[in-house]
């Protein structure tokens, strides 16, 4: 009846109170911080934020800078490949381990431990392994294959793939663990039913199991993508953005602009571009995901 209307705000009161931290964070930190960043991207801030308006000058400079263009290209290459490979590798590993293998604990720990290592040293180790003088290339050559060449980090065109190798090593363990959690949540009955129906295993995975793991996939997707967009430490540790600028990425561009170049305005302009791209992807997804819910209230 009509009496419900005025109490709309107090419905689910406890839930709303419990969600206050989230609401505050979302509004003040994320929205507030983003607005702050965008505002100052139109200024000439150097080391400290200053309200000296310069219109679109920071953006003009941004898009004219080769380093930024290379950074975006690298992020696209690294991002797409990383996303695909980490899911494929992570899922296959999870599926393999899910087969109730012996030594599961060992295998799982070996694949997951790279995630515990801070990027600082991950980058360094892979720098060594990919070093032509004493890394993988020299080992294979010592074995007799004299013309084997594997030094991506010193070749501007393919250096980003060298970084990809290290990134995959670091991240696929976590994806595997998440996928494993999802797989373990699938009821055994489903498998039996599929086998009774005569469906081959790979098809069961593809058509039945994966769709059932949708929530896990989405969580993992957000996790991995967020990590890719923010990738910085790995690049700095492994190649410092080099050779030259061939492994630059947007997050590093932002950091360098803010703290080496002491040019906050430029750094904020770059971040705003990054955030814009993310918004373009996240907002339609949200509308899709949550648009239907409104009907169920």
């Amino acid at each position, binding site marked *: 009846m009509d009496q419900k209307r005025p109490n709309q705000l107090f419905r689910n009161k*406890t839930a709303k109170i419990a*969600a206050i931290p*989230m609401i505050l964070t979302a509004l003040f930190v994320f929205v507030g911080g983003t607005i*702050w960043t965008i505002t100052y991207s139109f200024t000439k801030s150097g080391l400290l934020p200053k309200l000296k308006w310069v219109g679109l000058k920071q953006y003009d400079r941004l898009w004219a800078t080769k380093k930024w263009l290379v950074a975006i290209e690298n992020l696209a290459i690294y991002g797409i490949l990383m996303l695909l490979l980490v899911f494929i590798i992570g899922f296959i590993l999870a599926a393999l381990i899910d087969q109730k293998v012996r030594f599961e604990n060992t295998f799982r720990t070996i694949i997951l431990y790279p995630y515990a290592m801070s990027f600082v040293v991950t980058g360094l180790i*892979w720098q060594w392994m990919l070093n032509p003088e004493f890394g993988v290339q020299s080992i294979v050559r010592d074995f007799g294959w004299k013309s084997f060449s594997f030094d991506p980090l010193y070749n501007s065109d393919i250096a980003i793939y060298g970084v990809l190798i290290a990134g995959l090593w670091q991240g696929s363990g976590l994806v595997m663990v998440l996928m494993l959690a999802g797989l373990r949540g699938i009821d055994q009955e489903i498998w039996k039913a599929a086998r009774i129906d005569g469906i081959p295993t790979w098809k069961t995975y593809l058509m039945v199991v994966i769709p059932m793991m949708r929530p896990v996939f989405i969580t993992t997707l957000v996790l991995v993508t967020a990590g890719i967009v923010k990738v910085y430490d790995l690049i700095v540790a492994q190649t410092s953005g080099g050779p030259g600028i061939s492994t630059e990425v947007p997050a590093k561009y932002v950091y360098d602009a803010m703290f080496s170049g002491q040019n906050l305005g430029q750094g904020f302009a770059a971040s705003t571009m990054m955030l814009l791209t993310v918004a373009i992807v996240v907002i339609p997804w949200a509308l899709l995901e949550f648009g239907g819910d409104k009907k169920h209230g």
Partner: protein
Amino acid sequence: MANTRTMNVEPSGPKPKKTLSRNNIFLYGTLFVIAVYYAVPLYVMIVTSLKGMPEIRMGNLFAPPVEVTFEPWVKAWSEQCTGLKCDGLSTGFWNSVRITIPSVLVSIAISSVNGYALANWRFKGANFFFTILIFGAFIPYQVMIYPIVIMLREMGIYGTLTGLVIVHSIFGMPIITLLFRNYFTSLPEELFKAARVDGAGFWGIFFRVFLPMSVPIFTVAVILQVTGIWNDFLFGVVFTGPEAYPMTVQLNSIVNSVQGVKEYNVNMAATILTALVPLSIYFVSGKLFVRGIAAGAVKG
């Protein structure tokens, strides 16, 4: 053939009877090769940390140490210089613990409740704020430093442990909330409805119904947060003073010093030492993981 045979099919208990069946070789073989890819860098790290510097300078990465020495480990823990103090990593260890424990607890507590509220108590605007949260997961940390410094300063808690815990909770919120929300939505709705009918309220249902069923997901959340917060460098150094710097600051000083001789063996030992804490969490949580998940698959 199909019907009678399938009706007598035994549940697939122990796997293939022949241990050397083709499937098994393929399975274990693949896992072994993959495990090598993952393990080799660790092998290099361990082997390097046990060598003396002259041996390392000769350059063969993969060779086992001719002379095993534990000195790099001792140095990394208690003797390496990280500025004026020459106490190695031990200075920061307890600071890291002091930072990590409350941050993990608070961030997971808040995010799990968030996820629960979003999954089961849909109220107006919930999804709007949630979307903002997801968006927030993509913002590079460096960009948010200054706004947060200003915010904490105004609140009067800049430089305190509370401030740092809040910062970690804020940045952990998007992913961990997503994790919990997706998990809780995948649980059957009948559970929730039944509990409501029984008269339980928001907190009652959370603590008595959902919490016990969520051990695996809490495990994953702990893995994520412990790793992220323990390995964090930027927030630990910007939001505290030198007496409270976490271990990662010393690690960074040891590994990244620009001038002077790079003692690779000490660097490797230092890295492994720093990683031991998250690693042991993984190891311990492994059991919770496996058993918990299998038990948690409830079919309504």
